């Protein structure tokens, strides 16, 4: 391959020629300058083919110069920083940039899949819906794998992203979207009014189209105006300029999503800075000044590298001093073509011809270039890039013009995208030959080219007017208008939706290879709704979301279906405006920071002991405490249970929800919440309570202590704490506001430890100050008291037991939590204390047949749980009425009971279902399922809890516990759910 020649112009542009940068494309080393984009640098290096199209793998070059680019997609960076599908037109050049072409094999120049092009008659719109159905088995084995292999463009990065991301919030009075002339003058007006203003622009440099055009403001090059406005805005404390910041979405009530590319213009972000930051900007008003996107022309092989939007050609020449071609043919339906020709010639580049589809300007020349009016390009020729165009004039004469690039201009589409995110539909304007914004999001107005006001003077005027208007509407003062004068510009335009048919495909959607005939076929097959056409042809569904293609597609559909543009309408623009890296929308919240972590008071101590932790909701709790002798969960659990049952154990139970309830109606309130009666609980006593949802299913359970006449302390399950609090507040604020009661969560105020086992009282005696009598008589089962410990520290003591042993829960202010666990361990040493974790806790509660998580799963009723006696008959409570619905009283509802394997050593598994011996599996034969299992060190047997039809009546019978997914089938005997100490002698001891 020949060495590409340099296409860098010797003067001009806003690149920094003192700052050369080297980069590679497909491994080839090249040079550009600071201020270049990858696209401009590739052009400057004479590169024409940058990628391959999705379906036909046709070689593609660069079409545009901004975020609308459909063709020039590359993989940027490598390894874990690889970014597939990056638009070369917006990637800023940095030293060492690595880019790779994609969707080609073995190379960009020679891609075997280009063969698809040959079969293109087969691959019309929607062809895949019509085939690959026979033989049936081939879909899975042959067709689909092949389709999938061909799918996609770039490759996902390899490995974990080394960069980090952030989220942030910003508030302002007025958000300006776009930093072109309209946006800048809107910002000026808004800023001068004193309002808090944020201006966002996608690009690194403010100025919008002015950076790309040879325009004059107040008789000076427009760049000077931009610089002066920028200076004024920068000096205002109330104005924030956010460059490299794309407003990607509009959401309800003035919320705008913005992605700031903090460091994408560098090889790697500097330390302590994110790669990108996603902003939620909350604005009272917004002015959309996002400009417009130029439309391509549809002629045969209009996708050949070298065919470009005219505006892009001007951008490359004027802004980047890079020439896409040395012999350009300009093809236009508007006055823009003339600007292109003028600018090319001003840069010393030759224009071979100006083909103007509009009639009437016959036989003119422009600086020597012939102007062919009333003419059209029919098709292009060339190997790997345009080498000539075939032109037809109004008399039907055809001529061939040699060239190396084509600059096409077919009018502009206002960038209305953001006006549609809340459901607004653009309207067709015959005057502007474009869809202009329709219903706008509340608070947003549209200025400049985005509104279809394409001239510079209109942009400046609109911006200032709307910026002022927005400020005044929210109470700021009017700014003095200071409208600069501009040079003249022509805006005449007669859109040409497709050229006279010649040979070669006419691409509408370049990336997805959708041609005008695909749209015709869709129409022919009944896909006439614009949304059907989109989905059938995939027009506008590629990474560019049809920014350059949608309107042409609609125009063709309008033409072939005999409807107006208005009748056809547009498809819906959705966020994001341009694709957004997923990482930036997650920000800080990834990996272990996905959700906050909540630590228990004894966490530090437990980690020192080598405890293994597990997540319960957001809490980290000790699962078990491995020791040298008992290193695994099983042996550790057994040891912890045995120690607790025989001696004494301690467990951090601080995670249980604790709600302090006060007020003169507390008792009445609790009676309505709980199934049981709490107004009768004596002060200094605890009662177990069950709550239902209003639909009659059990909601949560726990013990509630009465600490005073009007003072209760409710405990909830760990998982239920939040839900219960919201429920209480609902009942109080919404259902019964007449009751005087107040709730405060004190979950974290108290570090609470369960001390259980025969020596628990002895241990406590060493901690509780001696003036408190904690003997069984003075402090019996279900007693509660405020005591002092360790010489005067206030503590709360409860005689409650989950383990079934004589047990106490002691609560101390959390600051003493760490010291407390150490003190308990020290005091318990003499009794052989062991700490126990969740495994042991769960084993002991199963031995005692207490219900917990998987039994209180929201699908069970008090009756299912064998707790129907806890529903007081004399009073109403939440859920009582609905718990009496017929289905909930059906005799064959699965009922809570216990299970033991016939052979004690046979492992039981949670989630196994029950079947009668001899019955075949079927839904009808399904008797219920096992919820919780454990090995019981106490009984030296596996045991389980679960629900089975007619459970109570079947105690003593045998059934199969079948766990298909773990391949076990165990004979179990149905038994009482309380496996151990049925009479509760131990806990009352």
């Amino acid at each position, binding site marked *: 391959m020949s060495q590409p020649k340099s296409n860098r112009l010797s003067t001009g542009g806003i690149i920094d020629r003192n700052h050369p940068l080297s980069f590679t494309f497909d491994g080839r080393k090249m040079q550009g300058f600071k201020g270049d984009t990858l696209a401009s640098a590739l052009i400057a290096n004479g590169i024409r083919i940058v990628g391959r199209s999705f379906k036909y793998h046709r070689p593609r070059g660069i079409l545009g110069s901004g975020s609308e680019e459909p063709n020039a997609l590359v993989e940027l960076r490598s390894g874990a920083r690889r970014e597939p599908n990056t638009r070369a037109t917006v990637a800023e050049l940095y030293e060492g940039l690595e880019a790779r072409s994609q969707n080609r094999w073995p190379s960009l120049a020679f891609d075997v899949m280009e063969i698809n092009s040959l079969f293109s008659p087969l691959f019309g719109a929607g062809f895949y819906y019509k085939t690959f159905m026979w033989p049936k088995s081939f879909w899975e084995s042959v067709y689909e794998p092949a389709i999938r292999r061909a799918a996609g463009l770039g490759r996902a990065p390899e490995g974990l992203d080394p960069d980090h991301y952030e989220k942030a919030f910003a508030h302002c009075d007025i958000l300006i979207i776009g930093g072109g002339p309209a946006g800048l003058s809107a910002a000026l007006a808004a800023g001068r009014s004193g309002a808090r203003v944020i201006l966002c622009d996608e690009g690194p440099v403010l100025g919008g189209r002015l950076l790309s055009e040879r325009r004059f403001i107040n008789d000076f090059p427009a760049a000077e105006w931009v610089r002066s406005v920028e200076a004024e805005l920068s000096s205002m404390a109330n104005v924030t300029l956010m460059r490299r910041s794309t407003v990607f979405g509009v959401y309800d009530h003035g919320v705008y999503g913005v992605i700031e590319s903090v460091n994408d213009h560098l090889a790697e972000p500097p330390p302590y800075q994110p790669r990108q930051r996603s902003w939620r900007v909350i604005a009272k008003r917004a002015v959309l000044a996002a400009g417009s996107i130029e439309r391509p022309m549809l002629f045969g092989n209009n996708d050949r590298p070298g065919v470009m939007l005219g505006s892009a050609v001007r951008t490359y020449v004027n802004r980047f001093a890079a020439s896409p071609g040395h012999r350009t043919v300009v093809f236009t339906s508007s006055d823009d073509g003339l600007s292109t020709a003028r600018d090319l010639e001003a840069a010393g580049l030759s224009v071979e011809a100006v083909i103007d589809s509009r009639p009437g300007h016959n036989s003119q020349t422009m600086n020597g270039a012939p102007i062919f009016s009333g003419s059209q390009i029919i098709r292009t020729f060339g190997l790997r890039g345009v080498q000539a165009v075939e032109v037809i004039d109004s008399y039907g004469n055809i001529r061939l013009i040699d060239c190396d690039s084509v600059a096409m201009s077919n009018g502009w589409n206002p960038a209305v995208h953001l006006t549609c995110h809340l459901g607004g539909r653009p309207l067709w304007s015959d005057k502007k030959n474009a869809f202009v914004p329709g219903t706008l999001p509340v608070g947003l107005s549209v200025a400049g080219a985005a509104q279809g006001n394409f001239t510079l003077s209109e942009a400046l005027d609109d911006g200032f007017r709307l910026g002022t208007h927005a400020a005044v509407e929210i109470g700021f003062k009017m700014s003095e208008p200071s409208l600069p004068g501009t040079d003249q510009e022509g805006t005449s335009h007669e859109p040409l939706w497709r050229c006279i048919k010649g040979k070669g495909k006419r691409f509408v959607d370049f990336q997805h290879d959708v041609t005008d005939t695909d749209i015709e076929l869709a129409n022919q097959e009944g896909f006439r709704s614009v949304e059907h056409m989109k989905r059938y042809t995939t027009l506008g569904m590629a990474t560019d979301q049809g920014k350059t293609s949608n309107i042409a597609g609609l125009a063709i559909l309008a033409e072939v279906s005999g409807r107006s543009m208005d009748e056809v309408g547009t498809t819906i623009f959705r966020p994001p405006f341009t694709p957004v890296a997923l990482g930036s929308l997650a920000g800080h919240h990834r990996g272990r920071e996905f959700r*906050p972590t909540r*630590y228990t008071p004894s966490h530090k101590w437990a980690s020192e002991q080598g405890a293994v932790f597990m997540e319960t909701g957001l809490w980290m709790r000790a699962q078990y405490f491995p020791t040298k002798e008992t290193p695994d969960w099983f042996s550790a659990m057994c040891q912890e249970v045995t120690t607790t049952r025989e001696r004494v154990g301690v467990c951090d139970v601080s995670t249980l929800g604790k709600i302090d309830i006060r*007020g003169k109606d507390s008792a009445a309130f609790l009676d309505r919440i709980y199934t049981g009666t709490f107004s009768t609980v004596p002060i200094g006593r605890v009662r177990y309570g069950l709550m239902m949802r209003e639909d009659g299913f059990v909601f949560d359970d726990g013990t509630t202590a009465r600490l005073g006449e009007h003072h209760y302390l409710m405990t909830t399950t760990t998982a239920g704490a939040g839900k219960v609090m919201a429920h209480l507040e609902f009942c109080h604020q919404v259902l019964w506001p007449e009751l*005087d009661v107040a709730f405060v969560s004190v979950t*974290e105020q108290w570090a609470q430890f369960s001390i259980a086992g025969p020596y628990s009282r002895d241990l406590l005696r060493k901690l509780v*100050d001696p003036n408190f009598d904690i003997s069984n008589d003075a402090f019996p089962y279900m007693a509660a008291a405020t005591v002092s410990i*360790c010489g005067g520290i206030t503590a709360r003591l409860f005689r409650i037991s989950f383990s079934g042993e004589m047990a106490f829960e002691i609560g101390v202010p959390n*600051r003493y*939590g760490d010291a407390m666990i150490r003190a308990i361990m*020290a005091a318990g040493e003499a009794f052989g204390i062991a700490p126990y974790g969740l495994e042991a806790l769960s084993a002991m509660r199963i031995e005692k047949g207490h219900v917990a998580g998987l039994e209180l799963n929201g699908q069970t009723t008090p009756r299912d749980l064998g707790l129907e006696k806890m529903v007081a008959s004399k009073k109403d409570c939440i859920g009582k009425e609905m718990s009496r619905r017929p289905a909930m009283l059906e005799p064959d509802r699965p009922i809570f009971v216990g299970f033991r394997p016939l052979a004690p050593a046979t492992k039981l598994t949670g989630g196994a279902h029950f079947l009668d011996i001899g019955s075949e599996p079927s839904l009808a034969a399904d008797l219920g399922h096992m919820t919780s299992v454990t090995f019981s060190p106490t009984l030296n047997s596996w045991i389980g809890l679960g629900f089975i039809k007619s459970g109570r009546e079947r105690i003593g019978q045998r059934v199969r516990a079948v766990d298909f997914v773990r391949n076990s089938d165990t004979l179990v005997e149905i038994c009482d759910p309380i496996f151990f100490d049925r009479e509760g002698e131990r806990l009352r001891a």
Partner: protein
Amino acid sequence: MHDSILTPQTALMGLINAGRYGRQEGDVGIRISEVKNFSLANITAFKNCREPLEKVIDEYLGLDLPIGPQRIEKNGYALIGHGPDQWLAIGYEENSASIFDKLEKASRDYAAIVDQSDARAIIRLSGPDARKALAKGVSIDLDPSVFHTNCTATTFAAGLWINLWQINDSPAYEISVFRGFGASLASWIKSSAEEFGYINQ
């Protein structure tokens, strides 16, 4: 008698270690410290009891009850509105716990006053870039024209339910979370402060 005297620990023990972190060049943008040894109580007024409650509070703390999400501070005590008929009372002085205790007893008929001194971790964040760091999670408008000294907010930031109040114009803020979330609060604040360079005190 007992030989064990329990040693209290602060909520963020070991999490905010003195030193400079994050960006090393240039001025420090942020200072972070743990608020220690405070007393905190949640006050909920009972029905139609605001007036008598106000009297008692004035008597014990010398403070008015703020209206709305405001903070009133004097002599080492502050009242922070955080919900209708709900306040946090914070005392930074040695003896504030016992004063709160007395207050609780004196106002039993008018309000539920519940000790929260151990339920929260509180971080103080100050410095010229404090506002920017907070904005990386706090969704309310922190601009001084909207949220200034003695404004308070109960809000959601970085997945945490926080109480936030501004204590001076430097600006300095205090942020409280449930104690068990202290580590996550510290982690979020520290990572938000990194780009500005911060000092832990």
